[in-house]
């Protein structure tokens, strides 16, 4: 695989702020997404750095989920969706014919808005990824992966005595942490999270936010959220989307204290949303 260098961001993009970072995990150049005739993402340019949490905010329907799903090619499963532009993971186009979507998704994990554990045991939920990717040579190794992943997801203490219970028997917050454990069990480089706390109460939310903070040391995390406070608490950079446009990107502190774009300011001051 030739390391095609990622081109620099072209002149004249509308996005305000610093879209690039040094040595990005993901580099996106002029990404467009159409659902049939609907133009859902328009010329988005953005980099995602290592060991950082990037928050994506914006009003409902602005394309945050759509953009997030481009990063692990989940939009492939939607028949009407058409993605164009360059999305490079470690400098290589993820749409390259020589790259495999299965391998990509093993590197880019995803946590969904609604907790969606498999209707199998807690153990099997976490062991599923290592199993299909052949990461464990024997049962002992698999046990270890499950153990470590559940610990990192902060769920071990709560479930260690009932690993064989169905994952669906856990509470919503526990289920979401199980989904996170499931995602990190395959050692991804990036974790995508689409409103992971929207179905959870404040305590469960706080736990997940702590978890995100810890996970940041090892993974790049991309999180979509409707909670300004959450974005401010967990992220280092924030991207504001509006009607498919990426309006502004920058350090979270700057975006929330001193937004450059009028639309961003209106949104975070609550003038619309």
């Amino acid at each position, binding site marked *: 695989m030739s390391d095609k260098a990622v081109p620099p961001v072209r002149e004249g993009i509308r996005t305000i702020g610093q879209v690039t970072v040094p040595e990005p995990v993901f580099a996106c150049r002029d990404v467009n997404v159409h659902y049939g005739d609907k133009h859902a993402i328009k010329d988005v340019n953005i980099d995602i750095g290592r060991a950082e949490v990037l928050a994506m905010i914006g009003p409902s329907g602005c394309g945050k989920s759509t953009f997030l799903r481009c990063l692990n090619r989940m939009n492939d499963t939607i028949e009407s969706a058409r993605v164009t532009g360059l999305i490079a993971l470690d400098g290589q186009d993820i749409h390259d014919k020589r790259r495999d979507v299965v391998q990509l998704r093993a590197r880019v994990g995803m946590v969904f808005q609604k907790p969606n554990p498999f209707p199998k045991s807690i153990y099997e939920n976490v062991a599923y990824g290592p199993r299909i990717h052949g990461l464990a040579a024997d049962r002992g190794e698999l046990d270890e992966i499950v153990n470590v992943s559940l610990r990192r997801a902060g769920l071990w203490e709560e479930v260690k005595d009932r690993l064989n219970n169905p994952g669906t028997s856990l509470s919503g917050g526990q289920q979401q942490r199980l989904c996170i454990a499931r*995602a990190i069990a395959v050692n991804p480089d990036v974790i995508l999270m689409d409103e992971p706390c929207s179905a959870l109460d404040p305590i469960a939310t706080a736990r997940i936010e702590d978890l995100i903070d810890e996970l940041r040391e090892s993974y790049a995390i991309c999180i979509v959220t409707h909670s300004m406070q959450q974005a401010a608490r967990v992220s280092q950079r924030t991207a504001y989307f509006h009607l498919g446009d990426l309006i502004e990107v920058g350090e979270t502190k700057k975006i929330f204290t001193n937004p450059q774009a009028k639309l961003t300011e209106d949104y975070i001051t609550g003038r619309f949303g």
Partner: protein
Amino acid sequence: MNSTSNGVPRTAAETQVRVRAGLARRYRAERRFRAYGLAAVALGISFVVFLFGTVLSQGLSVLRQGYVQLDIIYDPEVIDPAGTRLPDDLAVADYQALVRAALRERFPDVEGRPALRELYGLVSSAASVELQKRVTADPGLIGQRQRVTLLADDTVDMLLKGKVSRSAPEDERRLSDAQVAWVDALRADGALQLRFNRAFFTNGDSRDPEQAGVRGAVVGSFLTLLITLLLSFPIGVGAAVYLEEFAPRNRITDIIEVNINNLAAVPSIVFGLLGLAMFISFFGMPRSAPLVGGLVLTLLTLPTVIIASRAALKAVPPSIREAALGMGASRWQTVVHHVLPLAMPGVLTGAIIGMARALGESAPLLMIGMVAFIVEVPAGALDPSTVLPVQVFLWSDLPERGFVERTSGAIIVLLLFLIVMNATAVVLRNKFEKRW
């Protein structure tokens, strides 16, 4: 305040008045609806009870059959006049003569050909086969005297079961007064009674009601259904998985979908004609064979299996697919590890409904010759055979009274088959449903 009767209510109080005014009507409607529902259920149950009642009352008597005990003398002069004791010679001997001799011995007063013929008519022609079997198995019997239990004729059986009226004028029943008297005499010394009817479960079809059994049809049905299941389940589920999980949504798949739905509504006899033209005329497969029956019924059940499986696959929440795909499972793994197991209860239900329909089909099987009169119990899928519903159809058409109870008996066996199949389906479904 006329705003309570017309116009939009503006206050809570006005709204309450409106709500209360409508309450009685709403409850009345509900009660009426429940009454309709109950009536419908009651009607349905009464039909089922009526059906089962008739079938059971007519068919249960088939469990017992009239048998007569006779003192048979294995006369060497009759069985083996040449004294060779060769199996071939023993096989062709006139065993009927032994039965006749035994009857004459029992009723020495009977004289004259017509009277004797009536006397001989009390015992089934199956008796000679029974005697032949005994002698072939043990040639040492020759020359001995033995009390043997033999099948009575179906007319005698019907008399024992009270299905022939004794009070009817002689020329309106199939037994003469003399025969009735002999039957009573035999019964008086315990030589004639009803016993468990094994023959019904071990014999194939026969022209004589007392010898006719369902074994041939049961085995034929079993083989036919086995082939149907083995073909239509994997093909149907495979087609459903492809259409639901892999196929692009376009004009071609739309056309396929419409056609599958249409196929499900095609009259079954058309599938029979198709099978006749394709499997028998074109591919030269044997007529009346369970293999061809299974193929035809596969065509018939495929649409049902596909439609039910697709519905079951559709009902699996998309979040499960997303979870698996998001973990890096291939589409195939997603289907095999997650979607299909979750859809299995629905898929199985569909398959069983299809199988139940196939079990009850007779029309398409008539077309491919499974309606022939076949005495032998089929040993394989290529042997000529018939199936239970066709057997019911065949027997229901015959004039002898003995076939009336056999028709109902075959229906009972058919229903038992169905119950076993449905029970299996429930068990399997519960087993798979535990995965949730």
